[in-house]
């Protein structure tokens, strides 16, 4: 009985796929979208390892590592219709020292006005289809938490100085831990103009991430109060919340 149901379900799914392809307008074939994440401080790109920046708490800081996970990308049409990028292919590491580009393929043609994505991995929904195949990438990027089989949603490291502290290390590793701390967040951004996806266009979208918001967002984070924030039931959720206000879709070009 179970077997029959299982087979039947997979059949229906396959069937839907097949039908879907036929339903979509054959004159407008799917297209691509290139999303560029541009991490900034004071409106400018970040100079790693050397330049000292200052947060609202007047703490000077130098960034040595800045990475975060972007997932579950969804494009939203004017009428609210959502087109989700296949979940299994929708996990990316944005690395200030390496790739900050996400190239999406085979997206349904159409005109979109919003983009939605997750910061981190939605561990509440395990097992998510395909999330396991993100492991090798996360591993390579140092975003896998071996001891918990979980992901670091944000990895932000460097040194900081205040009037009384000189060049001390700071570490922020934000993630979800078992069922006790869920720091996965989603953001929805308004696009600056209509995003047209289709066969004949290859648009790119620039998303700016204001890294100062990590410290000075909805919540204020001071490194002199705590400089090593990892499994932290108080500060980690605050930072996760700050991240949601960090992004802005600033430009679309074709």
């Amino acid at each position: 009985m179970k077997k029959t149901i299982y087979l039947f379900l997979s059949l229906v799914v396959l069937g839907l796929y097949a039908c879907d392809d036929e339903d979509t307008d054959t004159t407008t074939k799917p297209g691509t979208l290139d999303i560029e994440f541009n991490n900034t401080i004071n409106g400018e790109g970040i100079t790693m390892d050397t330049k000292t920046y200052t947060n609202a708490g007047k703490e000077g800081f130098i960034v040595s590592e800045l990475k975060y996970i972007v997932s579950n990308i969804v494009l939203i049409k004017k009428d609210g219709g959502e087109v989700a990028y296949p979940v299994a292919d929708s996990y990316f590491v944005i690395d200030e020292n390496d790739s900050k580009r996400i190239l999406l393929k085979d997206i349904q043609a159409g005109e979109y006005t919003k983009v939605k994505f997750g910061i981190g991995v939605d561990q509440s929904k395990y097992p998510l289809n395909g999330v396991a195949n993100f492991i090798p990438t996360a591993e390579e990027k140092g975003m896998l938490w071996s001891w918990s089989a979980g992901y670091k949603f944000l990895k932000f490291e460097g040194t900081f100085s205040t009037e009384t502290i000189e060049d001390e290390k700071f570490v922020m590793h934000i993630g979800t831990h078992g069922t006790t701390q869920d720091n996965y967040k989603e953001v929805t951004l308004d696009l600056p103009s209509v995003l047209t996806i289709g066969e004949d266009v290859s648009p790119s979208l620039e998303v700016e991430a204001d890294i100062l918001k990590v410290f000075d967002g909805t919540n204020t984070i001071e490194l002199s109060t705590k400089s090593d924030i990892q499994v932290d039931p108080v500060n980690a959720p605050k930072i996760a919340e700050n991240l949601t206000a960090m992004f802005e879709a600033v430009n679309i070009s074709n």
Partner: protein
Amino acid sequence: MLIAFFLAGASCASSEENLSPVLEEPSSIDNNPKLVLTVPENFPELTYDTSLNAPTMKGFELGKMLFYDGRLSSDGVVSCGFCHMQDFAFTHHSHIVSHGVNGAIGTRNAPPLHNLAFLNSFNWDGVVTHLDLQPVIPITAEVEMNETFGGIIQKLKKDPEYVDMFDAAFENNKIDAENILKALSQFMIMITSSNSKFDKIEREEGAVFTDQEAAGFTLFNTHCASCHKGTLFTDQSFRNNGLPIDEKYNDIGRSRISGLPQDRYKFRVPNLRNIELTFPYMHDGRFGTLEAVLEHYTSGMVDSGTIDPLFKNDDGHLGLPLTPDEQQQIIAFLKTLTDDQLLNDSRFAEF
């Protein structure tokens, strides 16, 4: 693959009913029968959702091969089965805390691997909430297998036998992290311990307790079953059972993942099936015998701040009031939880 395409095409054209006749076809052609994960009559419902990873014969065989393959570790020697030995209900025999590659020493004792399909969370602190993810920890931990998934995938892809086995076990034929984890789960969820003397009594299959065991069962229900609850012998909660803190490890337990002070020194209530064989006992393997465990419950407890209220008595004494005879009776009962059938089940055996 061809079949899938054919069916997909068909499902567009035809209505639901006239699809049914072809439903049985794929599995017989595949020659990869589904395995039935039977829930014993005296067990609760499964927590593992088999609809997302239905065990099949080929998937199980692949999972077993991976489980016993040292190539999942960096030194090519330490397999899952190295720390989880069938003879000891899939625990690590004789080592206090588990050893990994190059003799690296972990800080915790390997729990038995049985009835995993009924658990809500894994490890002594519950850090993992889905069985499919559990192997990520030992595979990538330096003190255990010290490998990477990228590395394993490369090794497996070079082995024609594995190429064939993944091909047979999974529809997308891929050697990837997801299929490695799914195969390991298919192997592990089939390991059910449900044929101990206790089970046969509970299911009224003709077995009976001796007087000693029966007395122990009554005492167990009074003093132990509120935590070591039901047929799984755990309520799956996290508690502090009064162990003195071991300075060497200072393992804070559940607090490691919640960061909360009220979770310090709390550990998942372990199941007690096959307990006769899963020595040494407790998260750090500090007790070698059941006698030592019972002595702890009677007179060895300390309050490290979060001790379970159940162990606090009005007179200030910490622990359960059990005479030496009663302790022996409880131990006699605990030994009725040994499941020889599982320990000798060739389906799970390395050789």
